[in-house]
C-alpha cells in the first residue's frame, strides 16, 4: 500500500504510515481528525506560502507546546508565510527574534531539548551559515552523544532557498548539500503547495531535527488544490511523479517544474522520461530510485546548487554502486555552475530546460 501511495501521490493521501513514527503528542488527535474528515475532504486553491501558513496554523493548533520564531515572523514574515499566527496564538508562541541566526537556532535547540516543538525560521537560506555550527555540532549530535537521554527532535528549521530571478549572491543560494553531509538531521524539500503542507507537518511532528527548505520562487507562483484538513506526508519516501521507460530523472523543489518541461519536450522526440521527486534528501529513498534505474538504465540528476559536491554527486555514487551493470550510460548531472551565484549572469548559471533536454538526449543516445 505504501508503494501504491508513492506512485499516485497526487491524490489526497489520508493514510497514517505505520512505518513512520509519529510523536505521541498528537497521534491521537490526528487519527481522530482524519476519521472525522473522511467524509468531507475539501480542498482549496492555494499558493505555496499559504499552504505553509496553513501547516503552521495546524501545527500550533494541535500542539500547545509548539512555537514559531525568527526574524520578522510576527507581522507575517517577509514572504507572508507566518501571517495570522501571532493574532491567533499570541505573542508568547509566535515571536520575533533579533538579527542573530546562531542565536535563533541555538535557542531553538534548547527549547526542543525541553520537549517543545520549536519551529525556527531563517529568513533566507543564504543566512543560515552563522547557525551552521549549531545545527551540525549541536542539533545533529545531541541525541547521539547523550546516549538518547536528550534530544532536540522537536526542532524544525524553515528557510526559503533557491533562485528567484533577481536574487543575486545572497538571496538565491541552495545550501542543501552542506546539511546532507550531517548524520543526525533530516533535510526535506517540497515541490508544490500540497506537498509542502503535508511535508512540513510531518517534519514538525518528526522526532528528529529537520531542516526544511522552501523554494522561494514558488511561493506565489505555484498554485494547487490543497486539502484543508490536517494531513501528513511520509518522510524518506521519494515519489514518482511521471512514469517513463527510457531515463530516470531525479530532482527536488523548484527544479522539478523545469525538469517536467524538459520531460514533455523529450516526449515529443520519443524519449519516455521517468521523473522522481526525492522530497527528503537525507535520509533519502534509495530503493525507489534504484527500482526506477533498474527499469530505465539511465539516470539524470538536476539541482540548482553548484555541481561539484552537490547532492547529485551522492545520488550518482550510490546508484552506480547499486546498479553499475544495469547502467547504459554515465549518470548525468545538470546543475548550477561552479561559481558563486551570479548577479546578471543568472540565466547562464541556472540548469535550464534546454540544458536538461540536451543532457537527456545525449544520455539516451550514449
Amino acid at each position, binding site marked *: 500500500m505504501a508503494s501504491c501511495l508513492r506512485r499516485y501521490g497526487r491524490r489526497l493521501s489520508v493514510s497514517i504510515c505505520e512505518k513512520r513514527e509519529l510523536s505521541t503528542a498528537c497521534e491521537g488527535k490526528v487519527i481522530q481528525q482524519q476519521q472525522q474528515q473522511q467524509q468531507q475532504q475539501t480542498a482549496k486553491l492555494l499558493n505555496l506560502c499559504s499552504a505553509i501558513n496553513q501547516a503552521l496554523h495546524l501545527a500550533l493548533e494541535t500542539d500547545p507546546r509548539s512555537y514559531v520564531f525568527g526574524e*520578522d515572523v510576527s507581522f507575517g514574515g517577509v514572504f507572508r508565510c507566518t501571517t495570522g499566527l501571532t493574532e491567533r496564538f499570541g505573542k508568547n508562541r509566535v515571536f*520575533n527574534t533579533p538579527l542573530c541566526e546562531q542565536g535563533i537556532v541555538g535557542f531553538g535547540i534548547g527549547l526542543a531539548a525541553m520537549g517543545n516543538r520549536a519551529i525556527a525560521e531563517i529568513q533566507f537560506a543564504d543566512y543560515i551559515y552563522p547557525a551552521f555550527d549549531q545545527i551540525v555540532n549541536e542539533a545533529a549530535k545531541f541525541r547521539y552523544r547523550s546516549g538518547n537521554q536528550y534530544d532536540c527532535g522537536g526542532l524544525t528549521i524553515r528557510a526559503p532557498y533557491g533562485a528567484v530571478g533577481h536574487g543575486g*549572491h545572497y538571496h538565491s543560494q541552495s545550501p542543501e548539500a552542506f546539511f546532507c553531509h550531517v548524520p543526525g538531521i533530516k533535510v526535506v524539500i517540497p515541490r508544490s503547495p500540497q506537498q509542502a503542507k503535508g511535508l512540513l507537518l510531518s517534519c514538525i511532528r518528526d522526532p528528529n531535527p529537520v531542516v526544511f527548505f522552501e523554494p522561494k520562487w514558488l511561493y506565489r507562483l505555484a498554485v494547487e488544490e490543497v486539502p484543508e484538513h490536517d494531513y501528513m506526508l511520509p518522510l524518506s519516501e521519494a515519489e514518482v511523479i511521471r512514469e517513463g521507460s527510457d531515463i530516470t530523472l531525479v530532482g527536488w523543489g523548484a527544479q522539478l517544474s523545469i525538469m517536467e518541461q524538459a520531460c514533455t519536450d523529450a516526449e515529443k522526440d520519443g524519449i519516455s522520461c521517468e521523473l522522481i521527486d526525492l522530497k527528503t534528501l537525507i535520509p533519502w529513498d534509495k530503493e525507489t530510485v534504484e527500482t526506477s534505474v533498474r527499469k530505465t538504465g539511465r539516470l539524470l540528476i538536476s539541482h540548482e546548487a553548484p555541481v561539484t559536491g552537490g547532492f547529485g554527486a551522492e545520488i550518482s555514487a550510490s546508484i552506480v554502486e547499486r546498479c553499475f551493470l544495469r547502467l547504459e550510460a554515465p549518470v548525468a548531472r545538470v546543475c548550477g555552475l*561552479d561559481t558563486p551565484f551570479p*548577479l546578471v549572469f543568472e540565466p547562464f548559471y541556472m540548469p535550464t530546460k534546454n540544458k536538461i533536454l*540536451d543532457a537527456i538526449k545525449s544520455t539516451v543516445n550514449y
Partner: protein
Amino acid sequence: MALANFSSSSRSNLLKPLAPVLSFAETLRRPISTSTDPLIIETSVPFTFHNCEPPSRSVETNPQELISFFRGMATMRRMEIAADSLYKAKLIRGFCHLYDGQEAVAVGMEAAITKKDCIITAYRDHCTFLGRGGTLLEVFAELMGRQAGCSRGKGGSMHFYKKEAGFYGGHGIVGAQVPLGCGLAFAQKYSKDETVTFALYGDGAANQGQLFEALNISALWDLPVILVCENNHYGMGTAEWRAAKNPAYYKRGDYVPGLKVDGMDALAVKQACKFAKEHVLRKGPIILEMDTYRYHGHSMSDPGSTYRTRDEISGVRQERDPVERIRKVILAHDLATEKELKDFEKEIRKEVDQAIAQAKESPMPEPYELFTNVHVKGLGTEAFGADRKEVRAVLP
C-alpha cells in the same frame, strides 16, 4: 568641474556689507567663499560618552569645507533619488538599499580621515563609496550591472569596492564585515603607518555575535579599529527597542569606550571621527554610535511606512535633515547665497543625469565573466552549453 569664478577671501569679507544689494552683488558676481580661515561651529547636541572623555562641542571647520560638505551631500542625495527612479524603471534589478538621510555620516567621516585609512561597511554603501572618491558613473553602472561599474558589473548594489581609496565594501551578510574590519586594523597595526579602520554596521547588526567576538579581540590586541554603529533606529522593519535589550549601542562595548554622535550633523560626525582616530592610535578600539535616520525603507521593496509613521519621517526631514542643516550654516555665515546653493544643486542634477546616460551606454559584462575571478588559477571544471557537443568550456 567648472564652477563660478572664485575670488579670494579678503574680497568676500569686503563684500559682506554689500551683499543685500542684489543688483550690485550680481554685477560684482559675489564669490562663493573658498577661504580656509577657520570657523568654529558648535555641534547640535553635546556628545554622550561612555568610558572616555568626550571631544569638545566646538568644531573647527572652514568655508571651503562647509561648501564641500554641501556639495557632497547634495550629490549623494540626488544620486540616491535617481537610483530610486531607475529601480522603479527596472533598470536596476535585484536589491537596492538607499542611504538618503544618512549622508552626513559618509561626508563627515571623510573629512576627518585620509584615503589611506580604511572604511568597510554593509550593503547601504552607495554614498560611502562616493565619499571615498568613487564617481557617479561607476555607481550607476554598477547598479545597472554594467562593465563600467566599480566591480565590473559583477557585484551590484551591495558590493561596491575601491581599492585605491581604501574602501573595502560593500557586504551583503549582516554583521560579517565587522570581524573583517578588525582584521584590516590588525594589518594596519603591523604596517605602523598611523592609519585606522572604520568598520560600519547598523543597529540590526549590533545584535550579531560575531561583533562581540571581534570587539573582544580588538580590545585585547589594541587594534586601531573604530566600530561605527549607524543607528537609523530600524533594522529592516524592526524598531531598535524591539530587537535590543540595550539600544544604547555606544555603551555595548562595555570595556571599550563609546561615543554617541548626532549622525545628522556632518560637523559632529567629523569631530567624533577625528577624535576617534586619535584615540584608537593610542588606546585601542572605540565605538561610535551615529544617531541617524533613513528616509527610504530598508530597500526598494520596502515602502518604509508600515513600521513607522509618515509623520515621523517628515518630522525628521524637517528638523534634522543633514543637507538643510549645512545649508543653514552656510547661509548664516554668509558663505554663499541661496541662489548659488540652488545653482549647485542644479549642476549636480545635471551631473547625475549625465552619469546615468553614460552608464546606460555601458555594455553588460561578457558571458565569459561568469567564470572569471572564482579562483586565481582555474578550477578546471567543465561547464556545458545548451548543446553539449559544441559548447564545452573549462572554467578558467
